[in-house]
């Protein structure tokens, strides 16, 4: 069978095959179910590698497009429309890469209802990949909303003590934003008789003031998902209560759906509004960076610290995107990947110690380096990556973003970038503070003296992440070259819009 012209469909729905097989396995055979889920996610990763191999890096156009009529509602065709370009390729790869790693991290952490867990996890992967590939607004919305359902179950069934509260809060918050986006999508569909994003970009000539409204409606959905300050309050609850694998995917991929939404929809569909609102977005981003950092520093629970650090890190991404110049947007997209890798790794690290001690309170630890040297070394690398040490991936992303933000016409002032740079220092403070509390000093707690260091499975979970942390840090060119053509195209389209605005 030839999959080459339906490669995107294959990569999106491949996990479903795993789901179907798992449904027929008796729930007592947990090991078999784990291996099957692993196999399905690895197969999906392999397919995404084929995607990468076929991808033409010199082109800025949508590639491997699959486009056919799906159904027609009230005279407007809704299309089954998948396509990939530089804006989405890395995020697809990030999703298919993090999913098997997350499944591996649950090997011993999830012992109850393994079958349902794996089913929901693979369904989640379908939704996430779909979000990054859908080029029809209706179809995008379906994938977007669908990801809520499995994540809701993952938090609600396998989460911590306040899981039900966190799951419902997560669901309602996200839905609150997306319904406003739904209305905006409907309005676009009625006015321009198409839901296909490239067609809308090409033909829709939306008046400036309406652009602002539509921008805000879309931004409501995306800003909650990112989450941008002050809409972030669902995030610490969801992260803290979610099981480790859920947190990894939540931080690694689901939050990126928000930032991706901005770059895929808000900026190209409503360029005038994007130019006009860029300073406000930058302001919120900078507040998020500083606020997230300050709150992180105040946490006693390691997982909460990592959760709030996401607010701070994603502030950088937003700042980069709304610099609206090539460096800013490229840096923003790369930083999405970086954050997925390093925060994903941090959540796995927190999960490992929680599995051993059943607490995440920083006061309960100290001197772990002596007891668990491998664990300590790996944590150090990830910590340094998260705070943006040169030579590791975080630095490349943040540096490019700051470069973009300093030189941005759209933001209009380098003050924002200046404050954001202060955020880098704050990140170093809270991350090192955490590291010191956990790993340095004497082993003064009896319970910590006999902790086992990482086993082979746990090392295998972290090593792939570390490889990319170094690779992007030392040689980011191949990653930038994947993004660059599409970003150039996006920015050149913005040029006309900013002329109109000024």
């Amino acid at each position, binding site marked *: 069978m030839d999959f080459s012209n339906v490669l995107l469909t294959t990569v999106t729905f491949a996990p479903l095959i795993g789901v179907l097989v798992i449904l027929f396995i008796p729930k007592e055979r947990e090991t078999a179910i784990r291996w099957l889920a692993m196999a399905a996610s690895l197969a999906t990763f392999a397919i995404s590698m084929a995607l990468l191999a076929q991808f033409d890096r010199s082109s800025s156009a949508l590639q491997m497009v699959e486009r056919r009529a*799906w*159904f*027609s*509602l*009230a*005279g407007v065709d809704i299309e089954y429309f998948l396509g990939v370009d530089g804006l989405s390729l890395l995020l697809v790869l990030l999703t298919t890469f993090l999913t098997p790693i997350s499944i591996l991290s649950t090997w011993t952490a999830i012992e109850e*209802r393994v079958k*349902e867990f794996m089913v929901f996890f693979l369904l989640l992967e379908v939704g996430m990949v779909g979000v990054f590939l859908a080029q029809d607004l*209706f179809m995008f*919305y*379906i994938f977007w*909303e*669908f990801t*809520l*359902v499995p994540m*809701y*179950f993952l938090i*609600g*069934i396998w989460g911590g003590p306040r*899981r*039900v509260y966190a*799951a*419902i809060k997560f*669901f*309602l918050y996200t*839905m*609150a934003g997306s*319904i*406003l986006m*739904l*209305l905006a999508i*409907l*309005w676009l*569909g*009625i006015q321009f008789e198409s839901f296909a994003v490239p067609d809308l970009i090409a033909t829709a000539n939306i008046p400036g003031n309406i652009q602002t409204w539509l921008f805000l409606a879309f931004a409501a959905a995306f800003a909650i998902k990112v989450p941008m300050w002050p809409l972030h309050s669902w995030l610490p609850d969801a992260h803290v209560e979610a099981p480790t694998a859920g947190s990894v995917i939540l931080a690694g991929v689901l939050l990126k759906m928000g930032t991706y939404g901005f770059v895929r929809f808000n900026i190209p569909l409503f360029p005038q509004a994007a130019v006009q609102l860029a300073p406000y977005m930058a302001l919120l981003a900078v507040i998020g960076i500083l606020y997230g950092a300050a709150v992180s520093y105040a946490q006693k629970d390691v997982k909460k610290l990592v959760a709030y650090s996401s607010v701070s890190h994603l502030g950088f991404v937003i700042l980069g995107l709304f610099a609206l110049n090539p460096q800013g947007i490229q840096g923003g997209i790369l930083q999405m990947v970086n954050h997925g890798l390093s925060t994903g790794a941090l959540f796995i690290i927190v999960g490992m110690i929680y599995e051993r001690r059943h607490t995440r309170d920083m006061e309960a630890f100290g001197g772990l380096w002596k007891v668990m040297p491998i664990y300590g070394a790996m944590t150090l690398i990830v910590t340094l990556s998260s705070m943006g040490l040169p030579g590791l991936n975080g630095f490349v992303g943040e540096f490019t973003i700051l470069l973009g933000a300093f030189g941005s016409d759209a933001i209009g002032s380098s003050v924002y970038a200046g404050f954001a740079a202060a955020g880098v220092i704050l990140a170093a403070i809270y991350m090192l503070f955490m590291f010191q509390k956990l790993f340095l000093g004497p082993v003064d707690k009896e319970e910590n003296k006999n902790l086992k260091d990482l086993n082979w499975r746990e090392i295998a979970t972290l090593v792939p992440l570390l490889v990319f942390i170094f690779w992007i840090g030392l040689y980011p060119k191949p990653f930038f070259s994947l993004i660059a053509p599409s970003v150039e195209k996006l920015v050149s389209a913005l040029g006309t819009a900013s002329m109109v605005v000024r």
Partner: protein
Amino acid sequence: MLIDDLLSILPLLIVAGWATILLIVDLFIPDDRKGITASLAAVGLLGAAAASILNFGQTRSLFGGMLLVDGFSAFLQILFLGAGLIAIAQAFDYLRRRQIERGEYYTLLMFSISGMMLMSMAGDLIVIFISLELLSIPLYVLSGFARPQPISEEAALKYFILGAFASGFMVYGIALIFGATATTSLAGIFSVLAAASVMPTLAMVGGALLMVGLGFKVAAVPFHMWTPDVYVGAPSSVTAFMSVGAKAGGFAALLRILIAAFPAAAATWGPVTMWIAALTMTWGNVAAIAQSNIKRMLAYSSIAHAGYIFMAVPAAAVPEVAAEAVRGAVFYLMAYAITNLGAWGVVLAMEKAEGTGLEIDDYAGLGKRRPILAAAMALFMLSFTGVPPTVGFIGKFYLFRAAIDANLIWLALVGVITSLISAYYYLRVVVVMYMRPGEPETQTEPLLNSTVWLAALGTFILGVLPAPLLALARMADFINL
């Protein structure tokens, strides 16, 4: 001519005639073998369904405009017959379990269905009134079917008295309209009003009274007061059918009257129905939050969904949007029917012989005990909320689209915000089923289970591939008078 007219309403004749025959046949069927009555009723409905498939695509005005056969009536007939078949399958074991199995249940059900079918074809106010009574009176009786349980008797009495009251409004409204226009035919009213330079006050008042009566039938705020009590008190199998059938019947008449007879007065009824829609969505969803009984919760949810469908009415006040609004409404009626019958099927499976097991807390642990049943229920709850990929999402999308197209953006905003509110109480059912420990007792009756599975499949498949149902809805237009 007469023969042609009769052939065009063959499905209706089959249902009504078969019900009459069944009434007599049932006398000769022994009490412990009432399954035969149920099967015969199902055969009758299947026969009618076959006839309506043969008649499909007709667009005719019959009996001097008394009845109208068009895409709209054909669509709704499919809905009524399908809902009727599912209602029979759901009632069969349930009645036996609750020891209220009597043959007239199925006969009454068929009479009510014939009333609904007649309603969907009505082209004259008199026919609308007759069909409303034919639809309602069997439902009054069915609500009290669990006699001598006081709760069921109370429901029947309450439904009957308030229903009679609503009928009174209708008759008075019809009389006033007749007084103003000297006709009861929808086409006649249309031409009188179209020719009038000023809207005759009597006709306006009459139209308002008609809306009160039909608002009662579809359970729209502020005419919804009876709904929770009746839905809780009536046997669950009756409620399941009533919440789908009576609502669809009421909307059929409402849409037909307003769009076919009163388009000239759209400037008046547009804003009024807009407020009714907004209030109904809001109140239904807000009140549902406070419920702990699943039947009561579904009753308020049914009010809320009447509000969503009601959005199509003010949208239809804009002439260019009217056709799409009607299509959106019938699509949503079908989506609601599928989802709602499935959800009630789960309620039926959870209800114990003595009529307990109806608290939402009784569903704790269902996710482990009956994974497929719980998954189906979760799917129905998502479809009610309007989360993709379910048919409920497509339905809401269609209705919101009509509202925005008619420039009622704020109404669509009320719609999405109340959907968000509804997520809270629908999700609570999911929370209880999956996230609370418990050992629920459930029934495993194959017929009932299969209706739930069928509904779940429909909810999902039509959510992913809605094209066939959309194509059917596209044909659901009114005949040109």
